[in-house]
């Protein structure tokens, strides 16, 4: 086992460990921290698999922005222990367990039946670099890229509408409404 394999295994274990902690922790803050561990580990795996651009995007977008918003909401609510609710009723637990088992089974079957290459494909030094990813995105996959942008626009509009739903029209208000910078996500 060389150093590369060692780090691959290490990051993979960390990712599974982080994901496990994320769903099992009772405190939302610890869940968020475990999720951070998971993002970091996944990013490490991507780095080893010759995708530095993807790895850093993962850190920037998920760890740097999305999870910070999660934290923001967790702190804004700062729920106490009583408010988090106790154990869920057992039929729900059973249902969730069955769902997980089915999903795991499907994935396991898919992975076992897939034809995996025995040797790693030869990659040029340019593979996974920002230039290569950009070129592929704006030539071969430009249609998918543009469709995603429309999807994101729709989601943004939806978020703004939801956030503004309960506001009075500005003319009827005495004081100006607080800024809604967060709503733009």
């Amino acid at each position: 086992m060389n150093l590369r394999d060692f780090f691959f295994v290490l990051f993979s274990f960390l990712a599974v460990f982080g994901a496990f902690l994320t769903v099992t922790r009772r405190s939302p803050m610890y869940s968020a921290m475990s999720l951070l561990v998971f993002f970091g580990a996944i990013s490490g795996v991507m780095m080893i698999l010759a995708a530095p651009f993807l790895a850093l995007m993962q850190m920037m977008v998920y760890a740097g922005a999305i999870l910070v918003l999660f934290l923001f909401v967790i702190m804004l609510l700062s729920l106490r222990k009583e408010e988090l609710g106790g154990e869920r009723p057992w039929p729900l637990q059973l249902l969730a367990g069955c769902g997980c088992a089915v999903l795991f089974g499907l994935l396991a079957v898919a992975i076992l039946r897939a034809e995996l290459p025995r040797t790693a494909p030869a990659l040029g030094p340019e593979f996974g670099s920002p230039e290569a990813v950009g070129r592929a995105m704006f030539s071969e996959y430009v249609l998918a890229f543009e469709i995603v942008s429309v999807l994101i626009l729709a989601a943004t509009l939806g978020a703004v509408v939801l956030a503004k739903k309960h506001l009075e029209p500005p003319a009827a208000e005495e004081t100006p409404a607080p800024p809604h910078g967060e709503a733009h996500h």
Partner: protein
Amino acid sequence: MVAVFGTVMNAVPILVWAERRVSAWVQDRVGPNRVGPWGLFQPIADALKLLFKEDIVPDGVDRVLFVLAPAFAFIPAALIVTVIPFGAPMMVQGEPLQLQVCRGNVGILLFLALTGLGVYGIAFAGYASNNKFALLGGLRASAQVVSYEIAMGLAIVSILMSSQSVDMNAIVADQTGTWMGFVPRWNVLRQPIAFVVFLVAAFAESNRLPFDLPECEAELVGGYHTEYSSMKFSLFFLGEYTAMFASCCMITTLFLGGWSLPGMNLASTSIPFSLLTVGVFFAKVSLLLFFYIIIRWTLPRFRFDQLMQLGWKTLIPLALANIILTGVLAQR
């Protein structure tokens, strides 16, 4: 690598000393001048004092997060300096030696990823302290960093468009040369809008006045570090000054031509030349740091809604317009 971290760890005490001396100068006071020549050894005395202070973990805090938070605040800031090219490559025993710890073509992205991580220390500290002032500080910090990170990223995009690379060395190389023989081709002159946006966002990201809302002593006692004492407190302190140093290094590299000066013979790879470029780099960084300190002692603090207005309604549209402008001009 060791040299770079050594530099950072030494830069911070000098920076603290400079901050206090400059603030004294601005306010027409004397400032620390008792310990050593011009008070230069004052930071050593301060550090010793902090080390021997009692380390208190208050009752009712979330212990794990409370202890982890200072580390989260310091580590990302310290890692940023690894992507900075400090000087021209030098030939050592026939091999070119790059003066940059983390080489490769993703330098800027690493910088953006790490600045985004810096907020976790503050957010965890605010949450774990079980104190309303600390919590408000943490909340403000997370909102502020998320908002200004976007403006910062967009400012960088226009730089990447004009230099056509995300590699830090290529960005520096792109800024060498002159117009009309004496005007340097630095990005601060080619991309003035991006420079202003980046500068303001960098101030906000490092929680410096006029954007130090997360610790705002008039409203929030000490903000997120209200409950911290001793070395844990000083790690926050260290993290803040390291982030300031790192962002000055970044501004120098992106906008002020990095280690280059107009008129330098860039083909040279001798060791004295390389050391000279390192000197040039740190001279530029020192000027920027001086600017940071002067700003702190001359401007009042923003109100929080003003901060959000500035970030979302001024800086981001400005940066977007600049990207379009850059795209149009680059087409010609």
